[in-house]
């Protein structure tokens, strides 16, 4: 529920409560009205008040019948007038007096002025008559007595008649009153019922509106949930896209890096002046720094996508710390700092840890410490945390510039590096600490910091690294490792990129191994089928058939060729790719750029011996930048050897005569599409050889030929031919062309 809908909800509740209360009251009122009506009707029925009129009428009738009987007895002149018939009539008359002469009758008839005297007259008559015709007569009924009684009875006739009428009137009045009361009650009942109906309608309306609100809220929630899940999917796909982008970018960035660093390694092996050597050193340092930053960014992306996995294995901790010490000592010394490394004796030598990631954390913290310490020392201390086995504490303490509390709070955040001034002074991407802490947390530990401005900093890494038995000797040995069987290897390189091919050929040549190249997976599989190799270096991303499929295809071959060692070669260093490569049957993975020492080590493990440094061909060129692309040519020279380049160049110029005559034919006959295709082919060949002028003019011809009603092509063809001749002359004058030397043909 949103905060602004709460008052609305409570208003609703108050309304409901009010309506409910009113309804209850109205129901009570209706019940009361109905009970009153029942009382009215029941009371009148039970006490037969309405029957009083009838009783008076009966009394009057019996009075007349008694009077008649008495008259008849007098007229008959009977000797004993008190006959049984008279007796009966008298008794009945008396019995009819009872129902009108009692307390309730007094209450009802009290307002009638005739009632009391008439009753008193009647009682007087009965008292007189009882003396002669009562239960126990005191004297016989004689005619004179009868006459007297008749006379007295006559006096009763008018009052009794009045009473009869009065009672009737009273009855009508009462009926009218009761009807009035019933009508009133009915009216009230109807009013209450109408009121109830209205309340019920309101109640129903409120309930309905609440129900609708609930429904709407549910719909809103459902829509929100749908939107959220869609947003989540979108975010996830965006994140995936980012990961793919990063992987691609890493590939794209590492490929030129491969070339750059490789060329620099090769360049270092050539005779250089002190100045050139210094420049090269700086260039290599910059490139290495850039590579470090690139690796940091990749680590971050892997940590974010959860693709970074910690792989714990038995690690010689003492040796690891020694290695870190050795590397960092150089850095520290170059800044004039002392590096102390101490390790408590309780710390086990062999622990279960991911050595690479542990080193990464320690390097990070130590280089930070060195970076932010102008003078003094840096101390790496390894000890048991709280003297508790299995929990290790690595402390990196420096006497550097330190941090205030605010900086300490932010120091593990991305791109935060002290403040802006220190950032400018010290450089770096500011990702190191975040990566270190994320790695420590991945390992089940954490990093904390304690520092004060100007008093140095202390970073403490707490990691659960359980002690393990040292692994059995030789268990970690790489398959095929045999240092005694050092020899030149037959290496199959599957690589689609021509520059990489050229570079690898040069490196392998330098290492004294023989290389055969395949441009895609399919060619690689065919090569393995046809020829014996010692090892396959397999690029993972290739056209036609990629490295994974090729590896699987090779593994499916009959032994022993199906068991050939395959090393994945890729700029894409993601764990997923590694896993996929392993699943495809590849033995290990070499991350590009593969430097000469790495390749040497790798091949040595598979039984190859290095032929040692080979003197690179020296070359110096000069002018002709507009006509030829010197960079390409030099790269060719450096990686392939000038002889091979000369061979390629010679074959290009040899075939150009045929090409030109074909071009002239097509231009003459007006087959513009043929001209276009031939010009395109010429351009491609010239491009790979670095013949810039030829590239330029064949492109001009190609474009002109592509325009259907375009300009005349003949002049363009003439220019192109002239440029070709100029280029050949230049190449010859530069000494590239006539030098023909024997060598292995490049596929």
């Amino acid at each position, binding site marked *: 529920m949103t905060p602004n809908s709460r008052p609305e909800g409570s208003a609703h509740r108050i309304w409901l409560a009010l309506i409910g209360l009113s309804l209850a009251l109205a129901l009570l009122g209706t019940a009361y009205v109905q009970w009153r009506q029942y009382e009215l009707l*029941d009371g009148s*029925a*039970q*006490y*037969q*008040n*309405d*029957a009083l009129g009838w009783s008076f009428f009966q009394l009057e009738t019996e009075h007349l019948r008694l009077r008649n009987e008495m008259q008849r007895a007098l007229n008959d002149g009977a000797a004993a007038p008190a006959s*049984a*018939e008279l007796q*009966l009539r008298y*008794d*009945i008359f*008396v*019995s009819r007096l*009872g*129902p009108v002469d*009692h*307390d*309730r009758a007094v209450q009802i008839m009290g307002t009638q002025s005739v009632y009391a005297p008439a009753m008193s007259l009647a009682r007087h008559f009965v008292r007189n008559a009882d003396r002669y015709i009562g*239960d126990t007569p005191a004297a016989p009924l004689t005619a004179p007595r009868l006459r007297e009684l008749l006379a007295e009875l006559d006096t009763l006739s008018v009052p009794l008649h009045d009473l009869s009428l009065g009672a009737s009137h009273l009855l009508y009045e009462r009926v009218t009153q009761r009807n009035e009361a019933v009508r009133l009650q009915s009216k009230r009942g109807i009013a209450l019922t109408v009121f109830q109906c209205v309340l019920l309608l309101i109640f129903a309306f409120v309930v309905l509106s609440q129900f609708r609100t609930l429904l709407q809220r549910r719909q809103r929630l459902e829509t929100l949930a749908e939107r959220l899940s869609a947003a989540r999917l979108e975010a996830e796909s965006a994140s995936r896209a980012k990961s793919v982008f990063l992987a691609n970018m890493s590939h794209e960035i590492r490929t030129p890096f491969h070339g750059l660093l490789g060329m620099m390694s090769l360049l270092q092996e050539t005779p250089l002046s002190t100045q050139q050597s210094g420049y090269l050193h700086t260039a290599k340092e910059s490139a290495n720094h850039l590579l470090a930053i690139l690796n940091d960014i990749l680590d971050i992306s892997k940590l974010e996508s959860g693709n970074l996995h910690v792989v714990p294995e038995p690690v010689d901790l003492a040796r690891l710390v020694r290695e870190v010490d050795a590397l960092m000592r150089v850095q520290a010394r170059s800044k004039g700092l002392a590096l102390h490394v101490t390790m408590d004796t309780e710390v086990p030598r062999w622990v279960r840890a991911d050595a690479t990631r542990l080193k990464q954390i320690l390097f990070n913290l130590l280089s930070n410490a060195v970076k932010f310490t102008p003078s003094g020392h840096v101390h790496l201390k390894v000890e048991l945390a709280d003297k508790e086995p299995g929990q290790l504490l690595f402390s990196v303490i420096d006497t550097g510039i330190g941090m205030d509390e605010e900086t300490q709070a932010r120091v593990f955040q991305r791109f935060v590096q002290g403040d802006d001034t220190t950032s400018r002074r010290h450089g770096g991407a500011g990702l190191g600490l975040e990566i270190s802490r994320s790695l420590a947390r991945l390992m089940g530990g954490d990093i904390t910091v304690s520092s004060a401005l100007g008093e140095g900093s202390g970073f403490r890494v707490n990691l659960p690294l359980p002690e393990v038995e040292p692994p059995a000797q030789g268990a970690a040995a790489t398959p095929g490792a045999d240092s005694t069987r050092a020899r030149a290897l037959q290496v199959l390189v599957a690589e689609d990129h021509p520059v990489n091919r050229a570079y690898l050929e040069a490196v392998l040549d330098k290492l004294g191994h023989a290389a055969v190249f395949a441009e895609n997976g399919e060619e690689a599989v065919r090569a393995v089928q046809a020829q014996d190799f010692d090892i396959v270096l397999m690029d993972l991303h290739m056209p036609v058939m990629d490295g994974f499929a090729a590896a699987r295809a090779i593994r499916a071959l009959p032994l022993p060729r199906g068991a050939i060692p395959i090393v994945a070669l890729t700029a894409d260093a993601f764990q997923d790719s590694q896993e996929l490569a392993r699943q495809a049957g590849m033995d290990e993975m070499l991350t590009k750029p593969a430097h000469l020492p790495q390749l040497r080590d790798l091949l040595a493990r598979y039984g190859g011996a290095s032929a040692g440094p080979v003197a690179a061909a020296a070359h110096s060129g000069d002018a002709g930048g507009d006509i030829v692309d010197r960079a390409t040519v030099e790269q060719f020279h450096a990686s392939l050897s000038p002889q091979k380049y000369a061979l390629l160049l010679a074959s290009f110029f040899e075939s150009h005569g045929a090409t030109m005559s074909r071009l002239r034919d097509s231009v003459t006959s007006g087959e513009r599409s043929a001209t276009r295709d031939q010009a395109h082919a010429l351009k491609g060949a010239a491009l790979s050889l670095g013949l810039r002028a030829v590239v330029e003019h064949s492109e001009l011809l190609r474009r002109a030929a592509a325009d259907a009603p375009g300009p005349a092509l003949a002049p363009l063809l003439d220019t192109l031919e002239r440029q070709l001749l100029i280029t050949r002359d230049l190449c010859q004058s530069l000494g590239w062309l006539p030098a023909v030397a024997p060598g292995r043909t490049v596929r």
Partner: protein
Amino acid sequence: MTALFRSRRLALCWTLAAFLASLPAFALDAPTGKVLLTVSGELRLRNAPEGAAFDMAMLEKLPQRSFSTRTPWYPQARKFTDLLLAYLLDDKPMPVREKGPLVLMFPFDTQPELRSAINYGRAAWQLKQLELR
């Protein structure tokens, strides 16, 4: 004397059906005392030209029950003893002056549904004749 009894034309089929159902349990002898009630109509058992005539002795032989009830005609509750036709009021025979000798009385107090003008009207006094229809 029977002629002196006040007669009320009553349609009492529902009560008489039950009343007469019990009649065969008694030998219908000729009344010896004053006839208090004559039942006329389609009767199989007859002891008089009009139908079945009962005197007090015969009525007393019928199964009896007593109940007290308030009525519109007495200020307080009174006890009636009857089969269906009450002949004792507060355990005493009812003279004519007391609306006797037979009255048709309903237990209004124990059966509130009887309390209606129709049933108060059916409570006949000085009953002398019943006609079965």
